């Protein structure tokens, strides 16, 4: 018995060790660091406990306020747009067409490349002053746009990159669409409901658990977006795409303010936690679970 327990612990140890070393310890360490004035170039032992000073400093920091507002703008733009776009693509790819499997694969491909550094680099070239898009506009005699040099269009290019990665949300939507029984649509056909009516009266309500799942995932991912602003815009111009993860990175590894960066991380963590909690709290109002009620049978007749 004892030996069995030991073998079990051995099997699970890679995860436990990994979790402790790379997740739990940094998590707690960052909390402690956020209460200090730790500096990356100094010994950790030189750091002083400064209480909540880092958190207080944040609210006097105009850069933080700018970064926060840019982050919220980015999240509020990308999450609904990406969900809507992924759902639209899933609905289109749910039609029974010839070679639909090929279409599904092709549309999923961007997500495999997705938010990788390579794609972000390509994105920078596409949106550069003499990039692909401007060349195209020149051909059409429309004049170029300084995509990455203007605050509004710089954010636009980051939002577009996020939408481009719609594949994973789309695949989850597609699975959700396939799980809706076809006889509901047949019943709706007999009831005289048009395709659009069927979408809003049947598809959308029955898809709410999947929308909820995707919503949470997208909120969490959007708040953590780093590659785009780091590689494509560098947070600029005029901090117009300076998302919070980029600020955290720069505070820690450019300005070496380890304590302040840790405090920023914790604020970001709390923001994500609050949004996730709000989503869970709201789900009783809009998410419909069609699962059987275990007591349903006994309540009958």
């Amino acid at each position: 018995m004892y030996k069995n327990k030991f073998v079990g612990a051995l099997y699970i140890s890679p995860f436990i060790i990994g979790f402790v070393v790379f997740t739990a310890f940094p998590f707690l360490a960052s909390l402690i660091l956020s209460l200090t004035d730790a500096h990356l170039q100094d010994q950790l032992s030189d750091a002083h406990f400064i209480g909540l000073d880092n958190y207080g400093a944040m609210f006097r920091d105009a850069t933080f306020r700018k970064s926060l507002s840019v982050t919220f703008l980015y999240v509020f733009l990308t999450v609904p747009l990406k969900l809507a776009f992924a759902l639209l693509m899933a609905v289109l790819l749910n039609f029974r067409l010839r070679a639909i499997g090929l279409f599904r694969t092709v549309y999923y491909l961007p997500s495999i490349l997705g938010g990788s550094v390579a794609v972000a680099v390509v994105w920078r070239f596409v949106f550069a002053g003499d990039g692909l898009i401007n060349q195209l506009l020149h051909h059409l005699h429309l004049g170029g746009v300084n995509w990455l040099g203007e605050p509004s269009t710089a954010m636009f290019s980051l939002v577009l990159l996020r939408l481009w990665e719609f594949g994973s949300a789309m695949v989850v939507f597609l699975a959700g669409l396939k799980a809706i029984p076809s006889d509901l649509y047949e019943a709706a056909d007999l009831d005289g409901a048009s395709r659009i009516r069927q979408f809003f009266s049947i598809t959308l309500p029955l898809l709410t658990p999947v929308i909820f799942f995707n919503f949470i995932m997208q909120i969490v991912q959007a708040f953590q977006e780093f590659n785009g602003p780091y590689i494509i815009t560098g947070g600029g111009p005029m901090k117009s795409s300076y998302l919070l993860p980029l600020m955290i990175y720069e505070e820690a590894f450019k300005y070496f303010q380890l304590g302040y960066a840790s405090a920023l991380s914790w604020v970001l963590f709390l923001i994500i936690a609050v949004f996730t909690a709000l989503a869970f709290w709201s789900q009783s109002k809009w998410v419909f679970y069609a699962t059987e009620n275990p007591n349903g049978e006994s309540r009958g007749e």
Partner: protein
Amino acid sequence: MTKISVRLNDVTKSFGGHEVIKGVSLDVEHGELVVFVGPSGCGKSTLLRLIAGLDTPTTGALHIAGKDVTYAHPSKRGVAMVFQSYALYPHMTVEDNIGFALKIKGLAKSEIKAKVARAADILQLTPLLKRLPKALSGGQRQRVAIGRAIVREPDVFLFDEPLSNLDASLRGQMRVEIARLHASLGATSIYVTHDQVEAMTLASKIVVLNGGRIEQVGAPLDLYRNPANLFVAGFIGSPRMNILPVTLEAADGASATVATPQGTFSLPRTGVTAAQGENLSLGLRPEHLHLAQDDEPALTGQVLLVERLGGETFAYVAPDGFENQQLIVRLDGDHAVAPQDRVRLSFDPRRAHLFGEDGAALGRTEA
């Protein structure tokens, strides 16, 4: 002249080159309850879906209430369907489920409410109107599905194996309810089932389907008494008809004599056209066999198994001289027959059935 409600004219349906419905023509009269019955894969559900408009015939035409609806949208055919799975909208209350079609139609809220209330009253669903389908029992869900059909006041009700998801006792209860409902609404109904008991008890007309073709159409008792062929004979009646291989000894226009390993039996039968010596099938229903009196001509055999159901007893008998054949005999519930008993079984020759080599019924019994 009776009014034709549904007319199928040489309808066929193929899926990817495989013909599932092979030329079906049928008239359903107004107010009839027609039951499509047949084994799995016989095409009965496909035929119903063609009538509903959920599938389109490959060839042929379909008329409902005098109009050609072969290619009409399901909602424009004047039909309502009750699905095997009920197909209730899981996120809508009972009230919204029943009223959905009326809402789509654009009826006033008060009118919808009144119609839903009336349907709920007929189906005893009034206390459940605010519940979601997941809070209902199977029988209640089935009634909601029927309610959804009723409010549309269709020309034709279509039922696709509506009771197959219910347990046996509830099935019996719902069967009675559907029969009562049909009697009170008087609307034309087409009902698909693989259960021949449902078919016999509900139908004013049964359509027996096999392999995408109609084997026979008729009133339940007609099919039971005069099956057109071996397939119908085997399908209608429970337990199924006993079939014994025999050969024709003689047929003289008024009677046919068949030879069996246990001697000859003479059946009063006109119009038997088979040739002498032809291999035939003798059909004997379990309820038409009885233990013979001493002087009666009889088939002898040994009891293999006895099933006692209380009100009746079924004895499985191996008849002497017939290889690998078995006769099921229905006896009184308290009959003292036991396995290994030797028995003599007699039958009323007027109620015996005779089928030719091709399976078609041979001759007619004089009434």
